[in-house]
């Protein structure tokens, strides 16, 4: 057991049980059990992708475009090919010859346009960092040396780097064949936004800017591609989140039969969505292995990572909120310009950021009149795709900032403002303004809880006392409504081939111990442990009797892997069903052995028992041994089947979870520096399988959001040159500036699965930045400062808001 209680389940709301069977929720479900894998990692025995070496393995380095937009006039690789240790140099056309291009389009979004993309630039490079040549050598250092000898003749072209200018008719074009730079646009709404604003007593408007981010997994991206020409098989050891996706991609785009492609995940040093994607440099490496017939290793270094790992956020949102005198919101409009890179990201699409802003803005509130528009311009910058939260941090920040603005305009306390406008219990189930089905959100419970946890009235009193002495502290709230466990409704119609189903095999072995093979994957979040807990509970064995295997497409059931906080919500269901099936099968066998009715038996603590009295009839080990090795003692018609595989397909389009965060800050109004004093989270992600692991996910997610609030910003200059090329410039949160984070859980059980779990991995990131922005503005409001509406909040921005610096 982990060493101390991490959170309390404050309120468990049991929704109507629509399942016909009994669902068994017992220990170790709900226990904060330790991850045994953590012991291995804490002793330096992790085996990450770069730790693996294969026979005859060679190393890849890339030549990348130094320009945001340039035509490749010629490439002379002859000197590079002769460099010490060089094995081969590949250019874009050579790789393109054996790779089917892909697009970032979707069948259900006909107005999402993105031309075909090859692994390496063939005619033009569309962002600084796009690969144009691949050097393979006997070491990474030698490959880099050789890469410097590749002579590329460039013709620099005008770069499209400003979101608004990109949409002007006279803008240079990223893809001339498309006629303009608008990759996608969309609109949602309901009610009558015009009357919503006309009848209002206050209307507030704001344009908010969201800096571009990247995920910065400490272990950079990487893979070892190992193609065997004698068998036409490909094995890829990949630092990735979705191995079956990559199996499909490699098979389809390299023309290798899919049953011959195997993707294996070593230990992975963080994912956060970054490692969910198809990267063109990675596909190029696989192509190189195919052409060479030997293993090729590529590990992105940190500069390459910052330059070419998918980016995220980068929105400019104009929002308007209308309220009546009593604070009731009568209308909300949101216009989002959300840039993407040179292409829309394939499979996962680059539209997620913007679409989730449209769908989730205003979600917690009773808003009849809503309009949201999205414009997605291409830029000559790196690809935008899915990073923890995907647009929801923006939706929350926009919404909660506007609610606070309106509250201030009407002279209403922000807590009271939310009470007046939240959807109430009796309004559920309902549809949010953006069209999302909301089954039930524990909004007021979460608000009440956070108000209590932060001692809100006392904190306000204290704030006033400090203000009187010239110290400016602020309190900010951020209500979160988020989608988790995104199901087939998003990816299915897109026809991108993503599996939204996940599966689990539970295998009882002769020893009576249990091996579990799951299609979900684990990059540190501990989902493997949750799976083991679920199986232990479902089957009736001690947690220590269960081991879990994941991350090998030749071994696990077919499934989606890790994305959209779905590991336990979906993978856990499959594990539960598989465990119950094995339990039922084991009891069938026991019944045959014991000449009893299987319904009179149960398994608990690895013993077959009378269900009524608990009396032990035989051990599970004994049963398994008979089932596997003593079939001679069984009646002829008995077929022991002590393993089972089950999948889970979510029946709802998505699970919706909610919560609230609060931030307490102090702003030094002379220097503009913000100190994070306290942070609270109340999260309702349904049932917690392992509270300690969930707390870890929430805190880690919050700190990424705090990074968004104060530090992180990928900056390009007007020529599309990256200015934040190292970790000295792209500032990630370090321990000193981070507060302790109070986490409390509410468990409103999800009713469309058996375990009642929803998903928790992204909640921290979704609300944290918003809470800080609101807290900073709360601190500065009495000084007559212009509301700050830009992330990250730098000291300069604070000083400008205070009018101390122009």
């Amino acid at each position, binding site marked *: 057991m982990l060493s101390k209680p991490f959170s309390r389940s404050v309120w468990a709301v049991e929704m109507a049980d629509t399942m016909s069977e009994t669902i068994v929720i017992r220990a170790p479900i709900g226990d904060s059990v330790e991850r045994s894998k953590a012991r291995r990692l804490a002793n330096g025995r992790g085996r990450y992708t770069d730790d693996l070496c294969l026979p005859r393995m060679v190393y890849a380095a890339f030549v990348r475009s130094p320009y945001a937009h340039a035509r490749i006039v010629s490439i002379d690789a002859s000197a590079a090919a002769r460099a010490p240790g060089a094995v081969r140099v590949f250019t874009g056309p050579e790789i393109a010859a054996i790779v089917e291009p892909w697009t970032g389009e979707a069948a259900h979004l006909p107005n999402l346009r993105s031309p075909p993309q090859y692994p390496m630039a063939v005619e033009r490079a569309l962002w600084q960092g796009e690969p144009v040549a691949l050097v393979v050598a006997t070491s*990474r*250092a030698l490959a*880099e*040396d050789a890469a*410097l000898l590749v002579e590329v003749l460039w013709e620099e072209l005008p770069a499209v780097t400003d979101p608004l200018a990109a949409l002007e008719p006279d803008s240079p074009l990223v893809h001339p064949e498309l006629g303009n730079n608008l990759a996608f646009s969309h609109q949602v709404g309901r009610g009558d936004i015009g009357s919503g604003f006309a009848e209002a007593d206050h209307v507030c408007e704001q344009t908010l800017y969201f800096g571009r981010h990247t995920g910065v997994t400490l272990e950079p991206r990487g893979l070892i591609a190992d193609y065997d020409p004698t068998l036409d098989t490909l094995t890829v050891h990949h630092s990735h989140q979705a191995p079956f996706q990559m199996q499909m991609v490699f098979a389809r785009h390299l023309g290798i039969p899919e049953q011959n492609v195997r993707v294996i995940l070593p230990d992975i040093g963080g994912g956060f969505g970054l490692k969910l994607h198809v990267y063109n440099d990675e596909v190029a490496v696989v192509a190189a292995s195919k052409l060479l017939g030997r293993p090729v290793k590529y590990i992105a*270094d940190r*500069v390459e990572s910052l330059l070419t790992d998918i980016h995220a956020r980068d929105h400019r949102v104009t929002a308007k909120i209308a309220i009546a005198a009593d604070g009731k919101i009568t209308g909300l409009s949101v216009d989002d310009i959300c840039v993407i890179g040179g292409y829309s990201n394939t499979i996962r699409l680059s539209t997620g950021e913007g679409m989730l802003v449209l769908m989730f803005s205003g979600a917690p509130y009773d808003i009849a009149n809503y309009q949201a528009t999205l414009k997605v311009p291409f830029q000559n910058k790196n690809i935008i795709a899915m990073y923890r939260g995907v647009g929801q941090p923006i939706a929350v920040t926009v919404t909660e900032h506007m609610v606070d603005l309106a509250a201030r305009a009407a002279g209403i306390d922000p807590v009271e403002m939310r009470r007046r406008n939240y959807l109430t219990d009796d309004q559920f189930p309902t549809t949010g303004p953006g069209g999302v089905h909301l089954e039930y959100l524990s909004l007021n419970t979460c608000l009440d809880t956070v108000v209590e946890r932060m001692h809100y009235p006392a904190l306000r009193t204290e704030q006033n006392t400090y203000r009187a002495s010239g110290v400016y502290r602020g309190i900010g709230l951020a209500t979160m409504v988020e989608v988790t466990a995104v199901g087939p409704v998003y990816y299915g119609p897109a026809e991108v081939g993503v599996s939204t189903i996940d599966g689990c095999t539970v295998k009882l072995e002769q020893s009576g111990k249990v091996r579990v093979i799951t299609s979900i994957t684990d990059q540190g979040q501990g989902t493997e442990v949750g799976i083991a807990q679920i199986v232990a509970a479902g089957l009736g064995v001690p947690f220590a009797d269960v081991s879990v295997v994941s991350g090998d497409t030749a071994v696990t059931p077919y499934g989606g892997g890790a994305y959209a906080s779905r590991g336990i919500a979906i993978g856990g269901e499959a594990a539960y069903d598989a465990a119950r099936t094995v339990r039922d099968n084991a009891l069938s066998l026991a019944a045959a052995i014991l000449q009893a009715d299987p319904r009179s038996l149960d398994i608990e603590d690895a013993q077959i028992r009378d269900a009524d009295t608990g009396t032990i009839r035989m051990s599970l080990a004994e049963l398994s041994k008979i089932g596997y090795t003593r079939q001679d003692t069984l009646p002829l018609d008995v077929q022991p089947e002590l393993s089972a595989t089950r999948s889970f397909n979510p029946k709802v389009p998505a699970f919706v979870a909610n919560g609230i965060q609060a931030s307490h800050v102090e702003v030094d109004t*002379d*220097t*503009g*520096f913000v100190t994070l004093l306290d942070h609270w989270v109340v999260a309702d992600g349904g049932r917690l399988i392992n509270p300690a692991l969930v707390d870890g996910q929430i805190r880690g997610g919050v700190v990424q959001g705090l990074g968004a609030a*104060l*530090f992180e910003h990928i*900056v390009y200059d007007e020529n599309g040159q990256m*200015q*934040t090329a*190292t970790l*000295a*410039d792209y*500032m990630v*949160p*370090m321990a*000193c*500036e981070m507060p302790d984070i109070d986490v409390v859980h509410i468990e409103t059980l999800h009713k469309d699965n058996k375990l009642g779990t929803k998903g928790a991995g992204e909640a921290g990131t979704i609300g944290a930045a918003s809470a800080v922005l609101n807290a900073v503005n709360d601190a500065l409001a009495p000084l007559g400062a212009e509301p700050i509406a830009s992330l990250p909040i*730098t*000291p*300069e921005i604070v*000083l400008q808001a205070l009018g*101390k*610096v*122009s």
Partner: protein
Amino acid sequence: MKAPPFQYVKPQSLAEVFELLGEHGDDAQILAGGQSLMPTLHLRLSSPTVLIDINGLDELAGISIDDGQVTIGALTRLAEVLKSDIVNAHLATLSRAMPHVAHVAIRNRGTFGGSIAYADPAAELPACMLALDATLIVQSGQAKREIAASEFFLGLYETARTPGELLIGARIPIDPPNRVNSFLELSRRHGDFAVVGLAATANAVGDRLEDVRLAFFGCEDRAKLAGRAALAVSGKRADAPTIDAAIDALTEDLDPVANLLGNSATKRHLAAVLTRRALGELARGVGEATHA
């Protein structure tokens, strides 16, 4: 990224170092702590033909005190400077600055001389040398030179040390009994280079400040003494009008360079804020000295 190819040599004597510098000139680089050089090599921003590893020259390390002067050898690790009883007893500015310098692991290898010779405009030690009126000692095959700190920092990563010379140490007068000081650094995260920083020293004479030195870092292309601002305060009590006068004068002393951490106006403003705070601290120090 991996470093480009180079030749490596670890001389056993200073004479050997100078010979190598003479032979290779700009193609050679000195490897001391490596905390600044190695990143530039790994980022392939620099391609020296020869790396001269001076870590074997034990005579260049050490902190000693003699006749009112502290001598710190260039090869002294920053961790040693931080822990040094001599520094902590006699050089308050340096003592206060050291915890701001990078992080534990960097200080364990990084050297005192390396930080000063590299002269990053946002680094703490060059400003400390200015505030403490230190003398930097450089040596070549031919001669030893002593250069006042106020004449040492010339421009962006540029010092008065010529390519054939090695910085071998600094000599710093110990704090007089009436020394008052302030060290303020604004950095986005602990251990980062400064957005703006100020190392301020003065001597309390009666209720006035004399010999005021205001050394800014993170503002311009090098650490810089704000001479006019210091003049506005010297010989005076650090009361509100005097402090205001110093802040006014500051606009003539500093012409901040914009970077990712702030534009010129912001840096100018922050420099003024730090000046006000530092002078306030100096004034309180005078008050304590007066009542001591």
